[in-house]
């Protein structure tokens, strides 16, 4: 103990006083309120006004929502029940339209007795995406992820089981071709063969093979044509297909744009700029209207497939630019480090560059995905019955004509759930991948 005070003061307390409770106004909720809401006359005024606005909104919206009527079979029925229950003039929601048509909003015209199939397909999707999203799971499950798209296709559209199997075999053919080319001439020939051979296989060999196998061993489930797809199922299929396909394509385009190889570089730049420079709705019209003229008459090139291809292209152009941002943010030393370690291009990208670049790009990528998922509602303009399109059809029946907000609220909630969970996942992923201290 220092003796500084010993000369000036006669007595120094030898032990600490016990902590006492802070005054009532300086702790807990009261303190928080005083500091944050009522700290000055302007703040008090603003708080009161805000509370009033909140009260006005809630006092209208909450009764409208909570008192809503669920058990009617038409809008007129809703109004009769409302008048009987609450008296005339009360504005309440008519949720009966959701109760009556929720299956249609979710599944479109998909046959009712087969609803289990799209649900199962969604579960397969989650099972397939889990090992990709959560790195804690065993890596062998990634093979399941590779198979998941084909299983999902089969579950959704049905038909012969041989179609998806034979098409999936194309991937194995590609891998084999790469190995053969790689051994004989190096990675370049391997890469070319890995692209060309499967395409030839799909174009010329797959069709007869499917027919042959189907005639020998007809295994299959009921086929559901694309016309019956609608509602959220349609948004999900377009969204999920677009998201999963556009990420790899976008990464390839971003790498292509940085490449020193002249043709690859120019093709990537042209692709990105052309696709990105034109609104999505124009591409959708191209898919639905223009392509019809250029295909031979009678060809049945599924509209949904055309839309998925266009949406994928569109999203991948954006992903490419987002990933390019990530690549540009990496210090040059990282590229040089890869070279110094003697890694070839593929290895240095896979092990050093892309993991860091993608981590930087995560918010942008997820942002693009959320945008893409919401953009799927644009297909309403080419006559596909997504939830918005179906809400028009539902309003066009005499029972539900005149209903408005209820359908939009329902659709909005479903979209919010999907987009919000995507956003939360990306936040969690960013936190997990943070290596340096910020």
């Amino acid at each position, binding site marked *: 103990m220092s003796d500084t005070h010993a000369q000036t003061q006669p007595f120094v307390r030898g032990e600490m006083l016990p902590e006492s409770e802070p005054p009532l106004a300086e702790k807990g909720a009261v303190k928080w309120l005083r500091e944050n809401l009522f700290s000055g006359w302007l703040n008090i005024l603003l708080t009161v006004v805000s509370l009033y606005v909140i009260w006005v909104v809630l006092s209208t919206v909450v009764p409208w929502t909570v008192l809503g009527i669920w058990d009617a079979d038409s*809008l*007129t029925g809703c*109004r009769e029940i409302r008048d009987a229950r609450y008296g005339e003039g009360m504005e309440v929601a008519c949720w009966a339209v959701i109760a*009556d*048509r929720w299956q*249609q909003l979710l599944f*479109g*015209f998909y046959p*009712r007795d087969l609803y289990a199939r799209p649900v199962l397909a969604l579960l397969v999707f989650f099972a397939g995406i889990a090992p990709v999203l959560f790195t804690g799971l065993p890596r062998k499950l990634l093979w399941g992820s590779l198979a998941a798209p084909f299983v999902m296709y089969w579950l959704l559209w049905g038909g012969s089981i041989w179609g998806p199997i034979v098409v999936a075999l194309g991937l194995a053919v590609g891998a084999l071709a790469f190995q053969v080319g790689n051994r004989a001439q190096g990675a370049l020939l391997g890469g070319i063969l890995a692209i060309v051979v499967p395409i030839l296989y799909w174009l010329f060999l797959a069709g007869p093979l499917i027919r042959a196998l189907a005639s020998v061993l007809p295994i299959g489930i009921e086929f559901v*044509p694309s*016309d*019956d797809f609608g509602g959220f199922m349609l948004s999900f299929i377009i969204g999920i297909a677009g998201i999963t396909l556009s990420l790899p394509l976008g990464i390839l385009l971003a790498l292509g744009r940085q490449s020193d190889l002249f043709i690859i570089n120019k093709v990537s730049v042209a692709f990105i700029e052309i696709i990105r420079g034109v609104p999505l709705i124009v591409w959708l*019209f191209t898919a*639905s*209207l223009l392509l*019809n*003229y*250029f295909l*031979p*008459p*009678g060809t049945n090139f599924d509209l949904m497939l055309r839309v998925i291809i266009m949406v994928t292209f569109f999203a991948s152009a954006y992903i490419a630019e987002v990933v390019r941002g990530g690549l540009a943010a990496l210090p040059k030393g990282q590229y040089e480090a890869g070279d110094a370690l003697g890694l070839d291009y593929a290895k240095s990208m896979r092990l050093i560059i892309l993991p860091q670049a993608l981590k930087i790009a995560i918010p942008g990528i997820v942002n693009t995905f959320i945008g893409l998922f919401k953009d799927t509602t644009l297909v*309403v*303009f*080419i*006559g*596909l*019955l997504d939830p918005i*399109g179906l809400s*028009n*059809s*539902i*309003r*066009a*029946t*005499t029972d539900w*004509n*005149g209903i*408005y907000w209820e359908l939009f609220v329902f659709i909005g909630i479903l979209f919010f759930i999907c987009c919000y969970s995507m956003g939360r996942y990306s936040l969690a992923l960013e936190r997990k991948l943070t290596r340096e201290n910020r």
Partner: protein
Amino acid sequence: MKTSVFLGALTVAGFAAGASAAQTLDDVQSRGNLNCGVTTGLVGFAAPDANGVWEGFDVAVCRAVAAAIFGDPMAVEFVPTTGQTRFTALASGEIDLLARNTTWTFTRDTDLNNEFVGINYYDGQGFMVPRDLGVSSALELDGATVCIQTGTTTELNLADFFRVNNIEYEPVPIETNAEAQQQYLAGACDVYTTDASGLAATRATFEDPSAHVILPEIISKEPLGPLVRHGDNEWGDIARWVLNALIAAEELGVTSANVEQLAEEGTDNPEINRLLGVEGELGAMIGLSNDWAVNAIAAGGNYGELFERHIGESTPIGLARGLNAQWTEGGLLYAPPFR
């Protein structure tokens, strides 16, 4: 660039050649169903019910054609089309028949290479105003704000009408009918204008329909009818005469209830007998079985029955027959003779 233009022209030429050579009836028969273009939803004319089965006045035309070909009114694949996609869908062969409350106009018939096969509903543009406004004629609408769907013929008709009568108005552009209802009820506009059938359907959904009046002026002609593409006249004949059969059936008193009986027993009226295939070989002349009209009428009934069921006075839409009555009753429906 030259090459791509050339290739494009070649493709279009190839397509045109393919389309004109195509026998639509054969295609439809080998496919096993009719691809029929309808709206994505219009009250009374086309809408899917809770089970996804399409219903409506336009839909009934598709079903009648399918019934005439296959004997099965359900052998139709409905393709929802929008105002932008409808003609391309027809021209490219995605659909065989378009029954989508489409107004028969000169350019659509000639320049767009379509063939209208008849008129199944005579419509016209009207006005709806709140009763409180105290307006009894469209000529009193000077200075009114008007809710109007953009990009439709109604927009042009409106401009013409107000200019001819030398009165001012302020347009409030809106996108869909549902939006228009909301805007009109919220008081964003004094007047809502669209086809009279649409106005009636819209008014029927209001809490208090009697608080709104539909003004007597009809300012345009909107003959709505089914159409097929140029290049296959036999196919056009089938669609045309199925529609005529429905109209003639009403005139001749053939209904879905008595058509089977009349076809079996025959009647004293030779025209009914020819229509129902009891006499003559009319079916063979258009490449169908001789009971084609029986099937078409049995599918949903004659024109009058379809009208009553989907848009007539017994429905919430409550349209009167008006111009759509038989010529014998002061309307415009006049089916050519079956002979």
